[in-house]
C-alpha cells in the first residue's frame, strides 16, 4: 500500500515539475513584449518618461535578469504561494485575480463533470437493455460527443438565448447588478449559469452514455453473468453486478476526461463571456500577462493532478483487483 502510493506520488511530483517548467516557458517564449504593451496603454508619449517607466517595470517584473535566474526565482516565489502581480490588472496580485474567477469555473465544472458522468452512466446502462432506447441514445450520443464544445455553446446561445430569449448569453450575472448575497443576485447568477453548464454537460453526457452502454453489454455477456442467469438469479441482481463492474472503466475515463473538460470549460467560458478561468486566460494572453497566465495554468495543472489522485484513491476502494496489484500479486 505504502509502496503503491509512494510510486504514485513520485509520478505526480514529476508531472508537476514538468508542468511548472513548461508553464514558465510558454509565456516567455511567446512573441511580443508585455512591458511595451503596458506602456502603450498608459498613453505617455514623452520618450524620457517612457524610458523611465520601462526600466521601472522591467526591473519590477525581473525581465532584465538572465532566464535561469527568472526560472529559479519563479520556483522560489511559487513555493511561497506567491504568483506575482498581474500585468493586465496592475497592481492586483495574481492570486487575488484567480481566486475571484475560480468560484465561477468550479461552479460550472464540478456539476457538469459529475452530473454528466452520473446521468451518462444511467442512460447508457438503460440503453443497453431497451432496443428502442438504444437506437436513439446511441446516435444522439455520437452526435453530442463528436460536437466541439464551442460549437454546441454557440448553438445553445443562439437557440435558447437569442431566438427563444429564455437565457442571457453573456456574463456571470446581470450587468446591472453588483455581487452581493441577495436573492436577486443569486437568481441572476443561476440564470447566467444554465447555458454554459448545459453546453459542457451535453457534450460530456454523450460520451459517457456510449461508453457505459458498450461496457454493460460486455459485462452482461461475461461468464459470471451467464452463470448467475443459469442459476436463475433475477436480472435485477445481474444488472446490478454488471453496472458496478462496468462503472470501473468509467471511473478511469473520468480521470482522463478531466483534462479535456478543463479545456472545454475554457472555450465555453469565452463563448459566454463567463468570468471564470477561461476568460482570464484569454485576457492574459491578449495582454501578454505572463504572471496571470502562469497562475491560471498552475491552478489548472494542480486541479487536474489532485482530481486524478482522488480517482486513484477511489479506485483502490472500489476495485479489489487494484488492491491485489498493490500487494504485488498477479491478477
Amino acid at each position, binding site marked *: 500500500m505504502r509502496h503503491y502510493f509512494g510510486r504514485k506520488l513520485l509520478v505526480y511530483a514529476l508531472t508537476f515539475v514538468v508542468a511548472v517548467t513548461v508553464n514558465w516557458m510558454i509565456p516567455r517564449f511567446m512573441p511580443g513584449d508585455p512591458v511595451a504593451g503596458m506602456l502603450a496603454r498608459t498613453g505617455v508619449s514623452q520618450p524620457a518618461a517612457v524610458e523611465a517607466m520601462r526600466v521601472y517595470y522591467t526591473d519590477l517584473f525581473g525581465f532584465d535578469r538572465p532566464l535561469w535566474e527568472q526560472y529559479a526565482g519563479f520556483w522560489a516565489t511559487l513555493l511561497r504561494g506567491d504568483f506575482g502581480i498581474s500585468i493586465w490588472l496592475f497592481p492586483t496580485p495574481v492570486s487575488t485575480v484567480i481566486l475571484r474567477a475560480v468560484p465561477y469555473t468550479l461552479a460550472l465544472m464540478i456539476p457538469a463533470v459529475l452530473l454528466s458522468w452520473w446521468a451518462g452512466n444511467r442512460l447508457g446502462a438503460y440503453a443497453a437493455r431497451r432496443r428502442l432506447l438504444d437506437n436513439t441514445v446511441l446516435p444522439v450520443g455520437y452526435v453530442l460527443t463528436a460536437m466541439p464544445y464551442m460549437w454546441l455553446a454557440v448553438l445553445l446561445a443562439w437557440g435558447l438565448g437569442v431566438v427563444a430569449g429564455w437565457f442571457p448569453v453573456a456574463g456571470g450575472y446581470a450587468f446591472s447588478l453588483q455581487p452581493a448575497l441577495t436573492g436577486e443576485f443569486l437568481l441572476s447568477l443561476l440564470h447566467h449559469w444554465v447555458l454554459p453548464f448545459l453546453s459542457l454537460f451535453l457534450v460530456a453526457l454523450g460520451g459517457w452514455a456510449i461508453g457505459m452502454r458498450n461496457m454493460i453489454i460486455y459485462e452482461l455477456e*461475461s*461468464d*459470471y453473468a*451467464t*452463470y*448467475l*442467469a*443459469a*442459476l*436463475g*438469479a*433475477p436480472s*435485477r*441482481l445481474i444488472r446490478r*453486478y454488471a453496472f*458496478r*463492474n462496468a462503472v*470501473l472503466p468509467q471511473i478511469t475515463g473520468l480521470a482522463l476526461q478531466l483534462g479535456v473538460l478543463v479545456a472545454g470549460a475554457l472555450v465555453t467560458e469565452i463563448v459566454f463571456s463567463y468570468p471564470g478561468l477561461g476568460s482570464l486566460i484569454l485576457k492574459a494572453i491578449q495582454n501578454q500577462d505572463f504572471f496571470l497566465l502562469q497562475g491560471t495554468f498552475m491552478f489548472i495543472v494542480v486541479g487536474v493532478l489532485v482530481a486524478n489522485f482522488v480517482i486513484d484513491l477511489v479506485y483502490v476502494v*472500489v*476495485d*479489489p*483487483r487494484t488492491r*491485489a496489484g498493490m500487494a504485488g*500479486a498477479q*491478477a
Partner: protein
Amino acid sequence: MTLTVTDLRVSYRTLGGEVKALDGVSFGVRDGEILGLAGESGCGKTTLGKSLIRLDGRMRHVGGTVELDGRELPIADDRRMNAFRFHEVSLVPQYAMSALNPTRRIGRMVAELLKSRGVRLDRDKLERRLDLVGLPREVLDRYPLELSGGMKQRMVMVVSTLLDPSLLVADEITSALDVSTQKAVARALLGFRDSGFVKSMLFITHDLALTSHIADTIMVMYAGRLTEKAPADVMVKAPRHPYTRMLINSLPEVGVRHAERPLSGIAGSPPSLLDPPPGCRFRDRCPLADEGCAEDPPVTETEPDHFVACWKA
C-alpha cells in the same frame, strides 16, 4: 428415473440457417446415477447440457421433452424455467475460473444470490460443504482473484449444489485443470452424490479415461445424436459401436511406445450439422459402412442398459 429426455431437438440460429446441434436424443438418468457424456467437439454434448438448464439466445428448442422427477421441464420458456434452476437443476460451468463476480467477496456474492432466489443463507451448511471439498472457510471473505484455479472450481461446485438439486450438469469442468486437481474435483463430485447433495449428475467431458473413473454409465454422442450408452465398464471393455471403439482405441496409453504402435486417430471429420446427410452420420468415416447405413440406425437395447445406434453392432 430422475431425468428422462425424449427425442430432444435443439438447433442454433445462424446466418447460414438452422444448425441442428441436437437431432433427436433420448436417454434416461436414474436416481443416484452419474452419467458421463463423451464425444468430440461439436457433437452436441454442451448443447445438451445447456438445454437442460438454460438455452442461450441463439438456441431454439425444436422438439422433444425433458422430464425431471416426473415433472416436465419448460426448457423453451425462460421465465417458467427459472423456478427449476438452482433448486432442481444446477450447473457447474465450463468457465468456472471466471464464473464468480470479480468485484464481490465470495461470501457476499453467495448470500446475495441466495437472497435473490428467496432462500436464506445457511452459513453452517455452506461451511460444512467447504470443509468437504477442502476449502478453508476464509475463502468466503476473499475475492475470486485471490483463489487458485482449482479452488475457484471447487467453490463454484459448492455454490451450484448448495440447494441440493436433483440434477447437476457438470460441463467440461476438469478440462482446464491439471491431473492432480482433476482427481480432487472428481472425488468431490462423487462425494456430493454419495452424500445426497445432488441426486444425479450429467458429467460432460471429452476425456473418456476420466469419465470411466467417476461415471456409472457413459453415453457417447456423435454429430448431434446418441451413438452408444452403456455402463462404464462395459463401455470401456466391450464397446459395440465402431465410433466408440475407434474413440477408445485412439486414447494414448501410458508405457506404450508409439513408435512401435502408432497412435491411430479417426480419419475425416464429422458432417456439417447445417444440413446433415441422411442415414448414419458416422458413415463416411466408418470402416464397416455399406449401403444399409444410408438409412438411419435406430437406438436399440442390445443388452440390458446397453443402447447402440448402429446397423453393424
